[in-house]
């Protein structure tokens, strides 16, 4: 038995027990049992996380950090306990380095907004070519306002960032490097440790978008020596509308505040206001209290299975599905490299991803089709989009068999 949440360790991987935890996996779609392969868009939620939301609203609902009454204290404790769980999950040195946000998009905007004051004309930001739009647009906005320049770190045909080019791009004007740990369009894993080390040698800071990584790969922000790291709870079995920004303490202290309001201030006079310390400086307003607590529950849940066991199972699914799909004539997998998470982005020569996805949906199989919020990746390959199947630890080989036969069936209908 687990004595405390923080020391809770895996009890062995039982797919049946795991699937029993996810009520949605037992429903039907279009008259067929749901096969959910859109995990890269958002993961499903175990009962434990759903219960945490219900429990909070049923028993603990109160505003936090401000009440003297017992309920407020209890809610505050539960919310702050979630921060501790997140801190230990990512191995941050200090709890105040964990800023609770509404998600990756919010986290990136928070940092990019601060950089509007830190960048000057001619400064440079290096952005990966395979970024999600939410790790492109906030930087474009910051560059527009400051006269800083956005430089693109190109990828090769397999979706891997060209590290030689990176060395050439880095220079004394480089202030920041922003790349994802895992590409949502392709599933390819970037060598972020190398990127961080190279950038630091040039005196540049690094923000890693971990939205696609944190429920698949063990992340240790301290060991990585990363400056900023972002993620979304909803991709980690947690609820939507909550996420995290990790930042090194000294950097967050120097970063200008983002939104103003309650919670984030120390003293307010009309002559001027002093800001609260970390993490509250960046947490203006009443936060998503239930979401934060349930984010904690999601982390406990992932810990109880263990990221190693999760990665092992997902990798088996990936290998199995890759082999099965490759057997299909004219099927092209984008980013087919050894280092990737359980995401397969593919097309069948001559078929539109939308057609394939629509027919799979009729068979109860949920995949994502389109550009996956990464238009530059699609432009790179010169395609309108891909079909993306992304697997999670609660998926099975039987479901992958259904995907493969479903794709074959779709092809025979469409050709």
């Amino acid at each position, binding site marked *: 038995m687990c004595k405390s949440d923080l020391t809770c360790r895996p009890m062995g991987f039982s797919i049946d027990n795991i699937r029993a935890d996810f009520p949605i996996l037992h429903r039907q779609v279009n008259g067929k049992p749901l096969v959910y392969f859109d995990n890269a868009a958002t993961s499903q939620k175990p009962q434990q996380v759903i219960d945490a939301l219900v429990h909070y609203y049923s028993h603990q609902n109160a505003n936090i950090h401000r009440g003297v009454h017992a309920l407020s204290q209890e809610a505050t404790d539960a919310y702050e306990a979630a921060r501790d769980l997140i801190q230990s999950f990512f191995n941050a040195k200090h709890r105040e380095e964990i800023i609770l946000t509404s998600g990756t998009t919010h986290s990136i905007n928070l940092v990019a907004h601060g950089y509007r004051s830190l960048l000057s004309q001619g400064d440079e930001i290096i952005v990966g070519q395979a970024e999600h739009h939410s790790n492109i647009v906030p930087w474009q906005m910051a560059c527009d306002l400051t006269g800083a320049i956005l430089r693109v770190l190109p990828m090769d045909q397999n979706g891997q960032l060209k590290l030689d080019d990176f060395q050439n791009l880095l220079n004394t004007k480089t202030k920041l490097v922003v790349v994802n740990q895992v590409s949502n369009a392709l599933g390819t894993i970037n060598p972020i440790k190398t990127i961080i080390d190279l950038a630091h040698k040039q005196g540049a800071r690094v923000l890693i978008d971990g939205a696609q990584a944190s429920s698949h790969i063990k992340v240790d922000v301290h060991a990585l020596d990363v400056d900023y790291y972002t993620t979304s709870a909803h991709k980690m079995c947690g609820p939507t509308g909550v996420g995290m920004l990790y930042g090194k303490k000294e950097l967050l202290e120097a970063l200008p505040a983002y939104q103003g309001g309650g919670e984030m201030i120390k003293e307010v006079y009309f002559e001027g206001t002093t800001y609260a310390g970390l993490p509250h400086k960046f947490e203006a307003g009443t936060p998503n209290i239930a979401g934060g607590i349930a984010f904690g529950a999601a982390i406990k849940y992932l810990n109880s299975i263990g990221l190693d066991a999760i990665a092992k199972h997902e990798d088996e699914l990936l290998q199995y599905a890759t082999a099965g799909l490759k057997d299909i004539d004219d099927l092209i997998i984008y980013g087919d490299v050894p280092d990737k998470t359980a995401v397969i982005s593919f097309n069948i020569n001559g078929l539109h991803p*939308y057609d394939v996805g629509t027919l799979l949906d009729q068979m109860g199989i949920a995949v994502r089709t389109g550009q996956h919020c990464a238009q530059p990746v699609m432009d790179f390959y010169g395609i309108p989009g891909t079909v993306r199947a992304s697997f999670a630890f609660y998926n099975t080989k039987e479901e992958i068999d259904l995907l493969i036969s479903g794709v074959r069936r779709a092809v025979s209908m469409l050709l």
Partner: protein
Amino acid sequence: MNTQAQQEIIEEFALFDDWMDKYEHLIGLGKSLPLISDQYKTDEFLIKGCQSKVWLRADQKEGRVYYSADSDAIITKGIVSVLIRAFSGLSAQDIVKAPTDFIKEIGLSDHLSPTRANGLVSMIKQMKLYATAFAAQNNA
């Protein structure tokens, strides 16, 4: 009230009790849709809001409106060809007034929600916009 063409489409689709047959039919329609020439496959004729590209144009001849369209996805082509059959050949006025309930009756309503990526709603809107423009021209 459904138009005659809409009634025919409803009857045709009622023959299918299985999704596969229905989609096979749509795909067949998509494959046989007369293509519009490449000169019209431009941004001017592109309907926004679809995951697949749809180009749609309209002509008025002797008081009747005729549509032609193309798409890079076959199912979308099938859907747009159903819409063309439902509306093409009517007067601009009649198209503006024509109901769109037949979409639900042929079981394509899961494509109807405005957020659905295939943009069925945008296609109907664009067809009606063309008709509205012709109707205004005719009255002027």
